[in-house]
């Protein structure tokens, strides 16, 4: 009898929807049906059935081909390579659980590595702005229950977070927003007429790359000063109208995305956005939220902040203290300056998502990919170690884009012999300790933590 598992979290985007229902085969090895998820999430779950999923590590041979090796061999090679490297870079973690992120930190300390996550190429600038200006935000339920004005700035949830608008931001009927979309005024600020812009009541088609000016114009108008006839391609009257809508809101919610962080200005755009939010709080209640990309990309920011005090770009090479300075200790910059001599790609695909020049630099040195599937990074790596898929065959805690921890469950049994990220990192750490004749140091909880149970029903 197939089993229907409810309340499953979706390991794709930062919406981290946890209302998915998955029908699995009687022996819990196959996913048969996926309900409630978007097309991307559905594909992701079904992809876990792929019979060609790697079950063993593969090592690149001198002739350039890949050959399967055992896990102990792979772990030994990884441990030795990391110890040998002067400044290894461990990067990724958009798609794994917090248990893995916590475990990798031990390795990073031991190896004296730089620890970085996908935020470095996505919402890193948002972190920089938060360092400067704070982050007046809320959980997504607040947006759902209260927001009557919703602003999407440089983000396109209809494509990047397909269920965001129906679960949290535009359509849902919340406690104080019983009429759903009817009760909400939606503003979209984007240089393209995206599918999100088409849903909006007002689309401000900004000149690409002029976000800072427009944020500034809003702030100026809110403070009662005049602005030029057009700012960033938007007529003055339109800006005034939009500012008035935000000001008159009962609860204004601003979502922003890569359109602000990937372009000129970077953190300064976000800085202005946060200042705008703060200014609006003089008139009404206003919150802002970064549209985080992956389902647990908020995770490393949390885990490493409590472990090291920094969310990303953490240089542990000094041994005595952690150091962070994006631009200096950020992955792409380190790569372009040839400062790292070993690269470990975990739960992401730097091969596909870094500018190709950065990939070329990284490939000069040992390159290790840890990923459940074949990806671009695994196909250029010297060593590819497959692991279980967090949220599919491995449970664990993930942080949604609003930093709400959601305890994901496993829906199927993992491939035999394939470890989770956490187990793999713990084994690598143990091997590194053996190689250096030191005692592994676990915090008290280790023994129980290693194989967390996966309660399908509470």
């Amino acid at each position: 009898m197939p089993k229907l598992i409810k309340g499953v979290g979706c390991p794709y985007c930062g919406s981290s929807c946890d209302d998915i229902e998955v029908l699995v085969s009687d022996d819990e090895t196959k996913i048969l049906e996926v309900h409630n998820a978007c097309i991307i999430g559905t594909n992701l779950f079904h992809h876990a059935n792929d019979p060609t999923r790697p079950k063993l590590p593969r090592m690149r041979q001198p002739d350039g081909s890949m050959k399967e090796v055992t896990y102990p061999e792979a772990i030994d090679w990884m441990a030795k390579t990391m110890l040998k490297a002067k400044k290894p870079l461990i990067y990724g973690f958009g798609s794994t659980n917090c248990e893995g992120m916590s475990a990798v930190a031990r390795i990073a300390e031991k190896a004296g590595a730089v620890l970085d996550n996908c935020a470095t190429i996505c919402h890193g600038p948002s972190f920089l702005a938060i360092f400067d200006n704070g982050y007046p935000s809320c959980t997504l339920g607040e947006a759902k229950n209260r927001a009557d004005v919703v602003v999407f700035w440089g983000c396109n949830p209809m494509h990047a977070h397909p269920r965001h608008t129906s679960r949290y931001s535009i359509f849902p009927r919340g406690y104080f927003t019983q009429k759903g979309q009817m009760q909400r005024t939606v503003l979209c600020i984007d240089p393209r007429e995206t599918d999100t812009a088409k849903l909006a009541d007002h689309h401000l088609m900004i000149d690409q790359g002029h976000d800072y000016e427009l944020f500034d114009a809003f702030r100026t108008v809110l403070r009662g000063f005049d602005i030029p006839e057009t700012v960033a391609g938007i007529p003055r009257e339109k800006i005034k109208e939009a500012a008035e809508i935000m000001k008159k809101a009962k609860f204004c919610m601003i979502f922003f995305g890569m359109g602000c962080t990937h372009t000129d200005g970077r953190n300064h755009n976000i800085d202005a956005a946060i200042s705008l939010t703060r200014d609006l709080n003089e008139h009404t209640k206003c919150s802002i939220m970064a549209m985080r990309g992956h389902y647990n990309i908020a995770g490393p920011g949390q885990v490493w902040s409590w472990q090291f005090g920094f969310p990303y770009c953490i240089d542990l090479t000094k041994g005595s203290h952690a150091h962070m300075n994006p631009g200096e200790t950020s992955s792409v910059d380190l790569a372009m300056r040839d400062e790292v001599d070993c690269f470990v790609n975990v739960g992401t695909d730097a091969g596909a998502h870094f500018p190709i020049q950065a990939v070329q630099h990284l490939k000069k040195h040992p390159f290790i990919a840890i990923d459940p599937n074949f990806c671009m990074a695994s196909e250029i790596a010297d060593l590819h170690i497959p692991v279980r898929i967090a949220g599919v065959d491995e449970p664990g805690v993930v942080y949604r884009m609003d930093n709400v921890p959601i305890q994901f469950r496993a829906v199927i049994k993992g491939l035999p012999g394939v470890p989770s990220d956490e187990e793999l990192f713990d084994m690598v750490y143990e091997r590194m300790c053996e190689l250096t004749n030191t005692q592994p140091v676990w915090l008290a909880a280790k023994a129980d933590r290693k194989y967390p149970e996966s309660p399908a029903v509470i």
Partner: protein
Amino acid sequence: MPKIELNMITQRSIEEGAAMEKGKTNPDYFDACSICEMHPEDMKRAGIWKNTNVRVTSECGTVIVKAIMPTQYVPPGLAHIRQGVWANQVVPPRTQSTGTPQYSGFPVTIEPAPAERLKTALELVQGAVGLWKGGQ
């Protein structure tokens, strides 16, 4: 050959996401990401027919993609390649000291290249690091 200068952005799309989760060597991923969207007027200016290949060149690289009509309206002067392997062949790695590359808002020249072949994701990435063993 006519050339045009456009402002390039590379962002997500649901087609790209859905295909990526099937695997980056899946044909869907190729179809979803090896394309460049631009305004019909810009195509006309450069002598580009829709659904033909073009060469996109930035300060740091070049890539062959297929020019298509915008799936989401793009104003004149702006071009969009979906986030992914093809886009990242031309994305400048400069970060303005923030760690984040210039994924959006960098100048490119686009010219017709109807005779050029689209490369697969694997060929592009493995080719860039000297591992590509497949045919040309």
